[in-house]
């Protein structure tokens, strides 16, 4: 009876998840003493900014893409959306260089780096599709300029920056989903491995 239960798909998945990411690793209450630098704040700040981007984006979505041109409140929410994006990218770039300086891919963390870098790419696309979805002079100019670059790769045939419907859908549905999902994977990977230890001059012991 008990062996049957142990062999269920359900229990097996639960075991493997709990083994890889037990609750005290997912939400730890202590950190190694070396995690004592302001640089560690930038990952969390990036996440926080992503939260504000999504919140303000949801408010902008409620009344449709034209609302913010005519409403003072709408314009303010749009300004918040813009500035949270600026903070997001600023924090992410500092985070990236910080992780580079620490070679934070060591000790089996290379996929953490790779998912981070892919999130960066997805975020750039999300930001770009937002800039061309503004329905104002900036979006007209940015779209007509950017088309040449994308067309030269052949991609313009499928990713038409002059097609507002396509850009807006990508910007408010597909790319946010990608950015949030990638961030989730990224952060779970960090929690699974713990924070990378400092370089040590004399070490021969390879950590698991």
């Amino acid at each position, binding site marked *: 009876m008990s062996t049957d239960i142990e062999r269920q798909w359900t229990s097996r998945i639960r075991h493997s998840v709990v083994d890889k990411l037990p609750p005290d690793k997912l*939400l*730890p*209450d*202590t*950190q*190694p*003493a*070396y*995690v*004592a*630098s302001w640089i560690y*704040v930038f990952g*969390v700040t990036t*996440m*926080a900014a992503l*939260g*504000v981007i999504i919140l*303000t984006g949801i408010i902008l979505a409620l009344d449709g893409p034209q609302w913010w041109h005519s409403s003072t409140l709408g*314009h303010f929410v*749009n*300004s*918040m959306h813009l*500035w*949270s994006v600026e*903070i997001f*990218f600023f924090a992410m770039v500092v985070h990236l260089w910080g992780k580079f*300086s*620490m*070679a934070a891919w*060591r000790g*089996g963390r290379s996929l953490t780096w*790779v998912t981070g*870098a892919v999130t960066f790419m997805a975020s*750039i696309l999300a930001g770009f599709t937002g*800039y061309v979805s503004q*329905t*104002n*002079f*900036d979006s007209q*100019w940015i779209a*007509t300029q*950017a088309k040449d*670059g*994308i*067309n*030269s*790769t*052949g991609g313009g*045939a499928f990713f038409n920056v*002059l*097609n*507002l419907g396509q850009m*807006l859908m990508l910007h408010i549905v597909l790319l946010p989903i990608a950015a949030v999902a990638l961030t989730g994977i990224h952060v779970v990977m960090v929690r699974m491995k713990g924070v990378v230890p*400092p*370089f040590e001059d004399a*070490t*021969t*012991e*390879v*950590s698991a």
Partner: protein
Amino acid sequence: MTKKPFRPDVDAPVYKGPYVPYDIIKEGAIAVLVVFILTAALALVFSSPDEKAVTIKTWSNADAVDFAQTAGDELAGTSAVANYGAPYNNNGTSQHWGFLSPEKWIGVRIQINTTNDFVIDPLSAQPAQPALSAALSQWKSASSATQTAWDDAFNKAEPNLTYSNGKVNIPTKAAGPIPVLLNYETQMARSGALDQALVTQAGFYTTNFTKPLLFVSDGTYFAGLAEKQHLSGSQWGMMNETGQYPGQAWLWLYTFWYQIHPYSTSASADFLVWGTMMILTALMVLVPFIPGLRSIPRKIKIYRIIWREHYAAKL
């Protein structure tokens, strides 16, 4: 048990030091609060840019000559879009590097024929007026050799085109129906009807502005507005926004290449810049796997500053 050698840029040492209390949920909550307040403050102080979009109506009313010249170029097939090549048409030379030319391989998928799409079709959809109908049927029934002769005559007279008393004047008698067509086209543009005609060609609902955007981008008026807002390509272009806003500053490396040789002078600049960026991006994504590159952080020693307390404690 075989012991693998320790690779300092791939393996991490085992940490045997102390652990200290760390409240990550509290840290996260504070981060959200701080970012929210900072965002609201920046939004209050700096707001965000929102220049009205250019329409063909505003363009043709602000600069009727530029509009009529551009419309003439679309009709004659001499505009930038008319000679763009893929993905819009087959008239241009595709960007390439050696034999690599994905633009050409994928070909025309967003068909734009400037003569018909921007001039003839919108005019044909207008209520019939004798002079317009006559000019349209004269154009449509002419052989392509005749059309080319009219186009050439228009191109010669184009620099001296003027606009006065609601009329476009083209100083030539050899351009066939072109002067009449451009007069109606300009009227249509100034009334706002052309904006509508260009977007509604796909039916009632529309979310696609490819045609009017391409048309507007062929005029000098649009580029002039952008120039005033320091947005042109040689001014780090689309990375900026109108006004004094930071824009997409993270695209600096992408826009950077356009400023320097050989990119800045190449006819395939876009393709070369994209190729360069793709290679650099791949390098960034794959740093952990690239010997040499992955040793840089250990050699430049910035980590010594980041973990200075840790190293100080060990002494």
